[in-house]
């Protein structure tokens, strides 16, 4: 086997090294997402049950009243995310969880939360589609939808994806922290495998003592919307403290007043886009392996990254100079991970090709970016090895059943 270097860049690297008193459990991804939220101070969950996110709702209905929080089962996902936005505006951290069919129903509330800079966390446990598809099978079809989680343009989004039950726990805390710091909704884009899977999980005994959790603060002063500024860590606005804040669907002034002027649109967009673009370093989370010497680099995220990583290690054992990129931050897209002039093999759980298009854009030569699309089941290790081997030898992915390689 060729020697290789592994790197994980994520804030929980450091959190996990601390001597936190806690316990080890065998638990599901949905449990970890729930406990991560509670640990992060989430006190409202509002949503509508859907496989494979239903267990989050059920866990929340039990856990939230125990910690003084509120579980709301809404009439639909439109109501769910709007209620979360309302709760967050009232000063409580909030989360909702769904799958593709519900996620698309949230886009109205998502846009409202983006515009009004409302911190929230949204879990989308992806299943294969389109529409209802196969409810109990994993998919990765919402990569772009999560980026463009509402209409109208003029915003950036933050999207993170975990690939283990333990990571789902830490990443949920991280997502809440980012939501607070950036004053925006954050999507945890996970999938059916990670949600339903049971795995080893460490959780702290005392959530109150976690000093890396960013508490909710309140903005009690003008400007309520620092339009024209990219400043980070502006405290979120709060309704009910008599500040006179105005929150709306319209293009707004610093006060939150409805304004129909091009300059105001410019200033609002500057804020919504650049508070994220100017602070990309704060948002960078990924794992890599063997990038120093790789000729061919496999790219994946979520559950799928697990078999892909094993495939990369096996390919290296066979002498292929293979590397691995696992994206944790999906958006903003980490272009910098694709600077190496190598061949890329993008493994994702859809046939239409989504992540691969971003890699093509970011890589030095898009002709050297290959697609291995699969649907409803993770890539097998053998498929990954065959793909990497084929690309390393002949610049082509061999024909494999149920694998699509065409991106048009």
């Amino acid at each position, binding site marked *: 086997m060729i020697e290789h270097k592994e790197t994980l860049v994520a804030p929980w690297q450091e959190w996990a090294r601390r001597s936190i008193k806690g316990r080890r459990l065998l638990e599901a991804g949905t449990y970890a997402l729930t406990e991560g939220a509670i640990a992060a101070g989430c006190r409202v969950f509002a949503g509508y049950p859907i496989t494979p996110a239903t267990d989050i709702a059920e866990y929340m209905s039990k856990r939230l009243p125990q910690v003084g929080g509120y579980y709301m089962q809404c009439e639909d996902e439109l109501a769910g995310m709007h209620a979360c936005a309302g709760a967050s505006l009232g000063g409580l951290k909030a989360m909702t969880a769904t799958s593709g069919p519900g996620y698309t129903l949230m886009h109205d509330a998502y846009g409202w939360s983006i515009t009004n800079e409302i911190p929230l966390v949204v879990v989308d446990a992806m299943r294969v589609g389109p529409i209802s598809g196969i409810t109990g099978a994993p998919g990765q079809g919402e990569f772009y939808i999560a980026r463009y989680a509402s209409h109208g343009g003029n915003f950036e989004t933050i999207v993170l994806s975990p690939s283990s039950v333990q990571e789902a726990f830490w990443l949920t805390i991280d997502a809440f922290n980012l939501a607070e710091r950036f004053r925006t909704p954050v999507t945890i884009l996970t999938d059916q495998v990670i949600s339903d899977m049971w795995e080893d999980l460490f959780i702290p005994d005392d959530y109150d003592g976690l000093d890396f959790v960013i508490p909710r603060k309140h903005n009690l002063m003008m400007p309520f919307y620092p339009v024209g500024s990219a400043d980070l860590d502006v405290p979120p606005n709060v*309704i009910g403290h008599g500040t006179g804040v105005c929150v709306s669907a319209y293009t707004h002034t610093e006060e939150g007043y409805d304004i129909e002027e091009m300059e105001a649109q410019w200033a609002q967009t500057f804020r919504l886009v650049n508070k994220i673009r100017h602070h990309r370093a704060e948002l960078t989370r990924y794992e890599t392996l063997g990038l120093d010497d790789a000729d061919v680099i496999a790219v994946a995220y979520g559950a799928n990254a697990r078999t892909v990583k094993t495939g990369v290690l096996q390919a290296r054992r066979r002498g292929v100079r293979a590397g691995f990129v696992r994206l944790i931050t999906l958006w903003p897209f980490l272009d910098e991970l694709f600077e190496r002039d190598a061949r890329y093999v993008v493994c994702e759980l859809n046939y239409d090709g989504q992540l691969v298009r971003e890699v093509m854009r970011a890589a030095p030569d898009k002709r050297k970016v290959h697609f291995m699309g699969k649907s409803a089941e993770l890539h097998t290790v053998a498929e990954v090895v065959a793909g990497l081997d084929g690309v390393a030898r002949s610049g082509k992915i061999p024909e494999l059943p149920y694998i699509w390689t065409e991106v048009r």
Partner: protein
Amino acid sequence: MNKLAKKYLRPSQIPTKACHGCGIGMIENWLLQAIDELGLKQEDVIFGTGIGCVGRQTFATWGGDNFGATHGRALAIATGLKLAQPDKKYLIVVGDGDAASIGTSHLIHAARRNLGVTVICEDNMGYESTGGQFSPTTPAGYVTNSSPYGMVEPPFDPCDVVKAAGATFVAETTATQWHQTVKIVKKALANDGFSFIHVRFPCNENFGAYALGTRDTLKNLEWIYEHTQGRKTDGSESDFVWETGIKHDASNSRPEFSRIMRDMNARVQADLAQKAAKKAAT
């Protein structure tokens, strides 16, 4: 500026861009009168609106905290907000499109939960900010920009809907009933639960122009008056009549939504504490 506007509204946000003679400002003034007579202050009331003329022409006029939802979602937002801010009064000012069409599911479920808010559904019998299309409250036969041959769909009465869903206070008034509306709004705000007030008012620019054939404010108000009374000014019967007044008053008869949630939390936490104490003892 009148005294009430000075006391409660934002000078920079009034007058609004509503058309000349529009009833929206007048009804808002009545709301202020009710608030004032109840002795409420700016910081006691959260003002939520929908989208449409009613929403946009009232949003941010209120001197306290405001939110302007996306079309139809004001009650969905209010449901979450109420959990976080249970002690505030909520005035949710929405159009017939917001309440009786795109947001009806939220209306029904807010009523079912007995969410502690007062909804003022200002009904101009159509989608006026989009230029005057019919809505589920447009009276049968009337011509709008999307019912050029007359409104053929049967309308429904939002008061019936919320009453059936469990609202604890339901009333209907029209833009010709100043004192009655003020009295009713006061009662609605005194209900710690879901209150719904349906107020018909004339839109001169669209409903007036297309359904009634005039943009004249007084003529349009007269049409509202006739259908409030059931009688035309010439003494003959009008083609239909709205039944106004309090339609259902079960104020404070069952617990408010956020109260139910807080009570459950108290019960769960007491149970937990008891279990912990037992465990410690054994």
